[in-house]
């Protein structure tokens, strides 16, 4: 049974992540009185891109060519190292919050390098903005997860989830603050509203998309897939660390079935919330973004100070 579980654990993120993007797009379309594309459309898009030829700039170095593989591989590793549907598949190497945070930072680093690599004006723009947002988001990211680590006395992400699952009610307050801080980081790191507009066609306003403008074909597919993975990873962290209830704690078939369906339910709720945000407000001005990220940091710091 365990090998099957390991396979599920490893492929869950890349297999489901395009669906997450499709569901968010579908909900947004319905909010705009549109029919919208099928929720399976992102899979078709990836399939299409994988069958297309690539155009690579003459000026591109090895970084540009290799970055998509690094970025995608990192999301695979991280995706396999976090609690998804069960609590007992952790390891002591990669299932650590510090490792996870900084492995993801390596992905951002290569993404930003790739954006600048070909020397296009927009790539440099995107990279500079991405690093600004990413650097400011780091404080909230670390401190919100640190709250959990302090509460549960471990930095292992599976142990954290297990501790939080049967936690005393007095710790709800710091957890609430930490979650608010983490949710802001989730939006910033995954290039969603109010930080970035994933649906925009305006090259001057882009952050994440600007770094991908030079990519095409298979490498673009990998980049798109990787950013979908990243979104699902963040949703998984948010739902399974802060709301771990329902996750399978034993190796029984019923517990696993429950774990999978509860997790899918949580993903759906997050998709809905993100879609509501993106349908109801305008994107913030770029210079207002630091304020929001500072709020995330402050919320997380308050959360830590509230731990008795």
């Amino acid at each position: 049974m365990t090998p099957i579980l390991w396979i599920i654990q490893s492929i869950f993120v890349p297999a489901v992540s395009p669906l997450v993007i499709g569901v968010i797009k579908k909900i947004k379309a319905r909010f705009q009185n549109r029919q919208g594309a099928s929720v399976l459309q992102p899979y078709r898009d990836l399939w299409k891109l994988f069958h297309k030829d690539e155009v690579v700039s003459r000026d591109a170095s090895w970084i540009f060519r290799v970055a998509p593989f690094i970025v995608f591989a990192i999301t695979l590793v991280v995706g396999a190292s976090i609690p998804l549907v069960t609590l007992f598949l952790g390891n002591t190497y990669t299932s650590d919050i510090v490792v996870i945070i900084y492995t993801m930072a390596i992905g951002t680093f290569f993404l930003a390098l790739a954006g600048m690599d070909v020397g296009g004006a927009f790539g440099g723009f995107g990279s500079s903005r991405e690093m600004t947002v990413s650097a400011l988001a780091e404080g909230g990211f670390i401190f919100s997860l640190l709250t959990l680590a302090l509460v549960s006395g471990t930095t292992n992400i599976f142990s954290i989830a297990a501790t939080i699952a049967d936690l005393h009610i007095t710790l709800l307050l710091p957890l609430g603050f930490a979650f608010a801080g983490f949710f802001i980081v989730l939006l910033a790191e995954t290039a969603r509203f109010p930080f970035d507009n994933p649906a925009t066609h305006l090259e001057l306003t882009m952050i994440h998309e600007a770094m991908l403008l030079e990519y095409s074909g298979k490498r673009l597919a990998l980049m798109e897939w990787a950013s979908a993975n990243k979104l699902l990873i963040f949703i998984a962290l948010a739902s399974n660390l802060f709301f771990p209830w329902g996750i399978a704690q034993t190796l029984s078939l019923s517990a696993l079935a429950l774990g999978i369906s509860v997790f899918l339910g949580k993903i759906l709720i997050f998709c809905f919330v993100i879609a509501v945000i993106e349908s109801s407000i305008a994107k913030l001005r770029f210079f207002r973004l630091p304020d929001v990220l500072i709020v995330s940091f402050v919320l997380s710091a308050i959360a830590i100070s509230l731990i008795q």
Partner: protein
Amino acid sequence: MPASIKNITQYIPQSAKVEWHDTTAVFEVAPSDIQKIANDFYHEKHLPLKMITATDERKEHGCFKIWYVFGVPKENIFLVPFIVLKNTETFPSLATTIHEAANHERKIQTFFGLTPKGHPDTRPIILHENWPIDVFPLRKDFDGNPPREAHGQYNFQKVDGEGIYEIPVGPIHAGIIEPGHFRFSVAGEEIMLLEARLGFVHKGSEKLFERLSLTDQVRLSEKISGDSSFSHSLAFCQAVEQLAGIHVSEHTRFLRVIYAELERLANHCGDIAFIMLDTGFNFGGSQGTRLREMVMRVNERLTGSRFLRGVNGVGGITKDIHATESDGLSRELIVLRKDFSEIIAIAENSSSLRNRLEDTGILSSDIAKDCGVVGVAGRAIGMVNDARVDYPYAAYTTLHIGDVATEKKGDAQARFRVRVKEVHASIALIVDALRQLPEERVTQPVKEVTLKKNAVAVSIVEGWRGDIVYFVATDAHGAITRVAPRDPSFLNWSAVGHAGVGNMVPDFPLINKSFNLSYSGNDL
């Protein structure tokens, strides 16, 4: 000759021999005097400069002529002093005292090969480096065939300083919009200088006008800027009607108002939608485009064309609105107004949207005046200009238009709100015009016309962007030898760069959208 002639004579120099063509007063001025007269008109008498253009009359009279079109608002009269260039290819430039003359003169230099003496910027406009600098397409001896390819150089304005870098954007953009190149000089995210380089959709329309038959000319005028098809063709038809001495029927005049306002309504709804969409306010974006689509479908039902093409003609109009349709149309517009009001109420309540629009892309009123900004962008600073009021045409002479919609601040929000007000005004105007629409048979356009000989006509129409001006000249046989359209975009493009300075780069698409100028209408 108009009745208000007495008021007009005060403007015209005593010595001038004035020739009246309908409402247009034409008189020759010595090249050495034109600066004095133009400055007097512009600075002392505050007459708006509508256009400067040239004609090549070397074959007939052995000269070039340069025409300076000034409008007299409220009197509905145009004063057109012109200078004759015999044995010379230079003319005195007005650009140093009248800033907005600069681009008109650059255009004359590029297309006629006449040099404005004393002009501070002698770079070609619209035509690019691949066009030889000694081939002038609007001269009569240019045959219209593409010349040999040249390899010139265009020097963008440079900003020096530590940390300043340039971003070239376009002409191909990530979205489906018209092509234009923008050169940003930025420090970090802040725009220091913005230079727009246009001309990528130059189609040689002005040259084409010289060769087409009258009906085809009307069709061509509809394509000058496709989203203003009706206003452009209306301006052209009115100019030709002046030259032919045709007075159109009351019925036609009302229909023209209804169609022109439908065009304004559709485009304003679209603009309002896209401004909201560019801030990421998706609700407003999708609802606004829905309303635009409603109007476009009304257009299609009434005329068979979503863009109201093939409707206008010289002396008449091809598509009638029957009494049975007009009631239904009024009801539809009332529904549209209700939906529109609800959407705008939600938009005005969104603090995130307001935050994006407020203080974004402020155009100062001094710069706007110097650039001769017209239309929505001008009214957003409080400039009260509207050709429907200042130079009434069609049935605007009898309909009640109400106050010109203005705002004060000149930012993206002001331009947004001017459009909102104009949507309401347009709906009221259409409903009003439908009620007053005379019950008579529609007058079809005439096929053949006899035009006045050696005459000029100026016609102005308030398109949804601003006023559209057409200058039409005939030769000794009464054939049209020159059609010079001036889209409002030609003037307003020069202001967009100024509105961008001091803002940050990610806000520029929003600023650009709040102006929403035509590339095609500018590039011709």
